[in-house]
């Protein structure tokens, strides 16, 4: 089990996403997860070993490291990625539920069911409308909240996004205020800024997707309202024409009129 399994799970959701959703997923996998696994983990790999304090007092280094890094950047990013990917599961579950219902209908031999076999149901791509729209929109909303919460937690815990070279520590058992040096501070700052930048891009993509979905929803609503207003006038004109034709042809066309007006 690793990030590859997450890729398989989310890949399934990709089929039913909007174009912006697909871009978001690509950004997530290439610029966040891959960078985390291939590069960032190695930069933070030796963080405690190479964290050096200017003292021989045993225990001082451990205590100072724990004080300055309550939770390591790399672990926080891993948690952020997992939490941000989880709302997509809601969509996957909803799609699986719909497929299950369609398969049940198919097995019962429902005439309304337009599929030829089960494989077609498995391969079908569902449109984002109805209850699936609500699930999808909620998942984007939760994603945004998780991203924002983790960015804030990062900023709050580490006083900004810079990794200092030197930290002064006087936690017990350090005998006095001791200088402690962080390993690879510049490289860590670069990666931190990179991850924050990509997080911000993901937030923008999510906001864009949300706006797109809401716009589509309101357009659809206004079309429906528009259609229901125009329909009676259109029907009246057609009926008058038909009546004229009926008068010219014969009385038996009355059935057609009744059928037409209903």
């Amino acid at each position, binding site marked *: 089990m*690793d990030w590859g399994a997450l890729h398989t799970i989310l890949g399934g959701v990709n089929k039913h996403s909007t174009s912006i959703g697909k871009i978001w997923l690509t950004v997530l996998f290439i610029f966040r997860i891959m960078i985390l696994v291939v590069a960032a983990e190695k930069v933070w790999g030796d963080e405690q070993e190479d964290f050096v304090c200017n003292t021989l007092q045993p225990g001082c280094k451990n205590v100072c490291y724990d004080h300055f890094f309550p939770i390591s950047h790399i672990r926080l990013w891993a948690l952020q990625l997992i939490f941000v990917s989880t709302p997509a599961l809601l969509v996957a579950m909803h799609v699986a539920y719909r497929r299950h219902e369609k398969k049940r209908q198919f097995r019962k031999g429902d005439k309304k069911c337009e599929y030829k076999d089960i494989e077609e149901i498995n391969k079908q791509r569902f449109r984002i409308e109805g209850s699936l729209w609500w699930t999808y929109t909620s998942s984007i909303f939760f994603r945004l909240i998780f991203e924002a919460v983790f960015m804030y937690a990062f900023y709050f815990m580490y006083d900004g996004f810079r990794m200092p070279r030197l930290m002064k520590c006087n936690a017990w058992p350090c005998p006095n205020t001791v200088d402690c040096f962080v390993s690879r501070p510049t490289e860590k700052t670069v990666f931190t800024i990179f991850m924050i930048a990509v997080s911000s891009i993901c937030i923008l993509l999510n906001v864009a997707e949300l706006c797109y979905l809401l716009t589509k929803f309101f357009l659809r609503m206004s079309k429906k309202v528009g259609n229901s207003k125009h329909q009676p006038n259109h029907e009246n004109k057609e009926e008058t024409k038909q009546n004229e034709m009926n008068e010219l042809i014969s009385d038996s066309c009355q059935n057609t009129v009744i059928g037409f007006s209903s």
Partner: protein
Amino acid sequence: MSWEYLCDLLSGVNKYSTGIGRIWVAVVFMFRLLIYVAAAENIWKYEHDEFECNIKQPGCENVCFDHFFPVSHIRLWALQLIIVSTPSLLVVFHVAYRENREKHNQKLYKNPGKIDGGLLCTYLISLILKTGFEIVFLVLFYKLYNGFKIPRLVKCDIRPCPNTVDCYISKPTEKMIFLYFLVATSCLCIILNLSELSYLIFKHSLKCHLKKYMKKQQ
């Protein structure tokens, strides 16, 4: 052999689960297994090397580490994940048994994977076992480590340490955060299992009552 084997196992179980059962599988995958592999394992990786005692006496550090961590948190976590996932196999075996009976024309089932009759009992037993194991491991964590806290400093006076020596645990705060996360996800899984149990019992007792009522009417 790795966690992928457990993943394949659980994916197989997913097919014969109720909706709540599938949520349980998703929680185990995403919030327990993935977190374990992607984050937690690395925190405890060098716990012995980074465990430091304020003494030069050879052997003192080893003995103190062994005294305070009889079984490392991360190993208990792995054991918990494996043992808690195993009762689901009972359901898989029972379905395989049903399919085997069908193959040998001993009995025809409408749907071998449907949760009724004997399979319902097996499913309920697997839920009770899962919940039981979760609770046992939580109690074990609590008893072994005096609560879910990890102190920065522990005092040790076991031979060959010449006196009471200060020993410092590495990354205690980070370990504690992930320990709380483990406890929270365990509790969530217990709640999901209990909900699924109540849902199944309620559904089937309702079915039984309805059947009895229909029979009385006739």
